[in-house]
Structures are given as structure tokens and as C-alpha cells.
């Protein structure tokens, strides 16, 4: 009965899953990182949409008596975005180092190289 | 009221340029020609919309509305300033990347 109210969530879930799919299916290390950030961004959207109140406005106090959207998810997501960029930066620096060490950023090739070295 | 009407004329005009710019980006055959269409959006499209909005700001916000107008104009100024630089940069990049511009009369786009 409240399906209409949930469609939004489903859309965001779909986005999340696309990001997640990129993350786990791709063999390219950079693309994985991009997938990760898409995944995370979509989760953030989901969060923010949970905090939205119909007819609400941004939680910056002003005159009058408007309805404000829930500020708490915003705060959480701000933190999460920062965490996300930190992860991205670290991940990319690892990718650069991996490229220097292996000459490739494809997971399969790296695997082959490791196997070759082990033998 | 006059301001209101005027602002809407501006905004609609801006929208017109934005949409046409978009169409241009789709229709033009190569990246250089598309840059021209892109320029439209940046200059006129954005400009007219922002000016239109700035007329509104005096109406929507009683106190300090003009500050908002100023801010809108600043955005526009910023866009006007950066747009040619970005366009130029892109064109250079494309040239540098050995993308040959199409020359001569061309019929239709390749979209």
C-alpha cells in the first residue's frame, strides 16, 4: 500500500547495486575504486533520502516556522563522504604502486604474474 | 509585477539557449563544432537564467535580496570568465590529441 513511498528507495538501491556490481565484477583496479565510490555515493543518497521530509527545507534555521528535513543523516553522510574520499585516495595510491611493481592494473594479469613468480 | 514578467522572459530565454545548446552538442559533427554549442550554454543560457533569477531575488527575499542578486551576478561573471578558458583548454587538448577538425561545408550531424 505504501509501495509508492518506497519506489525512491528502490531506485537508490538499484544504483547501489550497479556500483556494487562494478566493484566486484571488474578486474581493473581503478575501475573497482570508481565502482566503490559509486556504491558509496548511492548509499549516501539512500541515507539522505531517509532524512528527507516532504515539504521540508534545508536544516538551516530561518524565520518563520518551516519544517526542516532531518539534519542528522546529513551530518553522518558528510563524515561518510570524507571517509570515502580518504579511502579513494589511499586505494589509488595503492593502484599506482601496484602498477609500478607489476606493470599492470588488471587483476587477472597480476594474478598470473604472482603465480608465475611462485613457480 | 513588471520585474516578475521580465524575469520570466529572461529565464525562458535562457532555457531556450540551454536547450538549443544541448541540441547543438548533439547535432554537431565533431568536438570543435560542439564546443561552439557548448559556449552558448555557458554564456547566454546561464547568463539569461541568472539574470532572470536575480530579478526574482529582489522579490523573493525582502531583506538582503540585492546581495543575492550580487551573488548571482558573481556566478555569471565567474562563468563568463572561466568558460572561454575551459573551452580553449578543451580545444587545445583535442588538437593536441590529434583529433582533426572537420573542415568545409558539412551537411547534417553525425550524432
Amino acid at each position, binding site marked *: 500500500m505504501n509501495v509508492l513511498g518506497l519506489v525512491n528507495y528502490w531506485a537508490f538501491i538499484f544504483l547501489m547495486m550497479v556500483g556494487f556490481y562494478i566493484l566486484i565484477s571488474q578486474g581493473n583496479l581503478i575501475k573497482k575504486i570508481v565502482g566503490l565510490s559509486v556504491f558509496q555515493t548511492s548509499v549516501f543518497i539512500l541515507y539522505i533520502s531517509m532524512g528527507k521530509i516532504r515539504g521540508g527545507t*534545508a536544516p538551516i534555521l530561518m524565520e518563520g516556522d518551516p519544517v526542516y528535513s532531518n539534519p542528522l543523516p546529513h551530518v553522518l553522510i558528510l563524515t561518510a563522504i*570524507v571517509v570515502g574520499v580518504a579511502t579513494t585516495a589511499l586505494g589509488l595510491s595503492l593502484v599506482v604502486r601496484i602498477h*609500478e611493481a607489476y606493470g599492470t592494473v588488471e587483476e587477472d594479469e597480476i594474478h598470473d604474474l604472482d603465480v608465475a613468480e611462485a613457480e | 509585477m513588471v520585474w516578475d514578467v521580465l524575469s520570466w522572459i529572461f529565464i525562458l530565454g535562457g532555457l531556450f539557449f540551454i536547450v538549443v545548446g544541448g541540441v547543438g552538442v548533439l547535432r554537431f559533427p565533431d568536438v570543435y563544432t560542439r564546443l561552439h554549442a557548448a559556449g552558448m550554454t555557458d554564456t547566454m543560457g546561464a547568463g539569461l537564467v541568472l539574470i532572470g533569477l536575480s530579478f526574482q531575488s529582489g522579490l523573493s527575499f525582502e531583506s538582503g535580496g540585492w546581495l543575492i542578486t550580487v551573488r548571482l551576478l558573481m556566478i555569471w561573471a565567474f562563468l563568463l570568465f572561466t568558460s572561454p578558458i575551459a573551452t580553449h583548454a578543451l580545444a*587545445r587538448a583535442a588538437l593536441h590529441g590529434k583529433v582533426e577538425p572537420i573542415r568545409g561545408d558539412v551537411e547534417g550531424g553525425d550524432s
Partner: protein
Amino acid sequence: MEDNVILRIGAKILIPFILLFALYVQFHGDYGPGGGFQAGVIFAAAFILYALIFGVDTAKRVLPLRFVWFCGALGVWIFAGVGVVTLVLGGEFLNYNVLRHDPEHGQELGILLVELGVFTTVFGVMVAIFYMFAARRQVR
């Protein structure tokens, strides 16, 4: 890229405004959107623009790596330091009320300081990370 006059002059004109705008965002976080983090990123973006156009080495002469590195650490100290000061003044950690006689002013001061801490760290970190990426050569 500084040989490109258009970019060079464009950047020269823009950068002060970007910096100023970053500081504006920093100090008006209380009233509008924005705050230490966003300001830090914008501030760093100005330097990144500078480094893009004039080269990382030039940028490093203006803003040595060691300095941005220090900024990254300094911000954490500022933030946690505020907390420690509140401890010393008898409040809980990060309870800004005790910073001034009047809780509201205390909060204001506290928020200002911690935002400054966030700003410093973010700015330092972003520039440092950019330096790291930009100053590396591709291995051939």
C-alpha cells in the same frame, strides 16, 4: 602550462578569489552551507590549480610539502586540543560550554576553532595527496 597565456593569466586572476571564497565558506559555515571541510577542499583546490598550471615544483616552493604535511597534523591537534582544553577547564571532552563564561559564546568559539582544525587538516591533506600523485613519474 604557464606558457599558455590564456591559462596563465586566467589562473593568476582567479586564484586569489578562490582562496578568498574558501575562507568565506570557512567562516560562514555557521550561517550557510559549508564549513571547515568544504573550505579546506576549496582552499586546496586553489593550490591544485596553481600546481596544475605552474607545475608542482613551483607550487612546492610556495607551499612546501613539509608545510602541508604539518598542516595536516596541526588540524588534528587543533581539534583534539580544543577537547583537551575543555577537559582542563573542567568540562567533558569537547564540551565547549566551558570555554567562555557564557555557554553560547563558548559553543561559538569552540565550533569556530574545531572548524579551523578541520580546515587545516583537510587543506593540508588534500594538497599533500595531490603532490604525491602529481610528482610521480610514470614508469616506463
